[in-house]
């Protein structure tokens, strides 16, 4: 009986907190919805007929699986670094926070470099955006994702730079920092599905 009462009072005491602010999630869910429409379009085209299925399977075979895997791990690591940076920010350890944010930016730049390397490799083989139905989607979807990554890197850079000035301003408020980290996690989360769809399904 006491146990249940304790749980109940505990549940009442825990204050539910919306990360960033409720309005922010309009952007996140808007973006997620657009991407889920893209994923569904990808799958529908893949299973349109036996012919498209072979084209997509051959496309997956020709991609560099190890670069894809490394890219996923790099993004996961940078997401984790951002989590650590946020927790140091909250505990007031700003130097460590800047260090981890810089590490996350470094990982993000690594992701961009690997992606560009992959694109150049494909273009040198004569495979461009209009090669076939698979590569049309491959270049454009990963390109849109790359755009998100670049936006995320620039936001993280703004946070790290303004933090290093040690002057409180609009870019170092908890709301902005949390918003940037949430955005970065969303970029990571979208890549996980893109990785599964483009590199793993074969």
């Amino acid at each position, binding site marked *: 009986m006491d146990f249940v009462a304790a749980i109940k009072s505990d549940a009442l005491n825990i204050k539910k907190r*919306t*990360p960033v602010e409720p309005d922010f*999630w309009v952007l996140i869910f808007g973006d997620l*919805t657009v991407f889920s429409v893209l994923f*569904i379009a990808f799958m529908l085209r893949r299973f349109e007929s*036996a012919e498209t299925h072979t084209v997509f399977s051959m496309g997956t075979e020709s991609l560099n699986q190890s670069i894809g895997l490394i890219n996923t791990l790099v993004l996961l690591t940078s997401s984790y670094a951002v989590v650590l940076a946020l*927790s140091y920010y909250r505990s007031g350890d700003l130097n460590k926070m800047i260090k981890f944010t810089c590490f996350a930016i470094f990982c993000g730049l690594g992701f961009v470099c690997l992606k560009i390397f992959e694109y150049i490799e494909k273009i040198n083989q004569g495979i461009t955006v209009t090669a076939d139905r698979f590569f049309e989607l491959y270049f454009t979807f990963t390109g849109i994702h790359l755009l998100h990554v670049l936006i995320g890197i620039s936001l993280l850079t703004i946070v790290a730079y303004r933090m290093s000035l040690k002057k409180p301003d609009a870019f170092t408020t908890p709301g902005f920092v949390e918003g940037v980290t949430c955005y970065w*996690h969303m970029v990571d989360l979208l890549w*996980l599905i893109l990785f599964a769809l483009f590199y793993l399904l074969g």
Partner: protein
Amino acid sequence: MIKPNSKQQCSMVFGVLVLITLGAALLTEVSILPIFTNHGFLECILISLAAVKIVLIAEYFMELHDAPRWLRGTMLTWVMATTAVLVSIVLFGGQTAMTSLA
């Protein structure tokens, strides 16, 4: 004051995420196993693994585990709905593609 993120919990989640990613990459290599000859089974597992990773990131990295119910619910609904649609396309679309091949 916002309570600091539990670092230990996040580290564990990160470890799990890396393990799942490596596991999913390994799964594609061992597709010779008899259970995977059934078409579409491997695809469903891979998509579900991605969905599990997304739920982990959303709950622990985006801190939705102590968010209000409407926010958590919307996120989970999005993940579930997308996964369900993708898996059903694999299951039903895969069959029609195979029959048109035969």
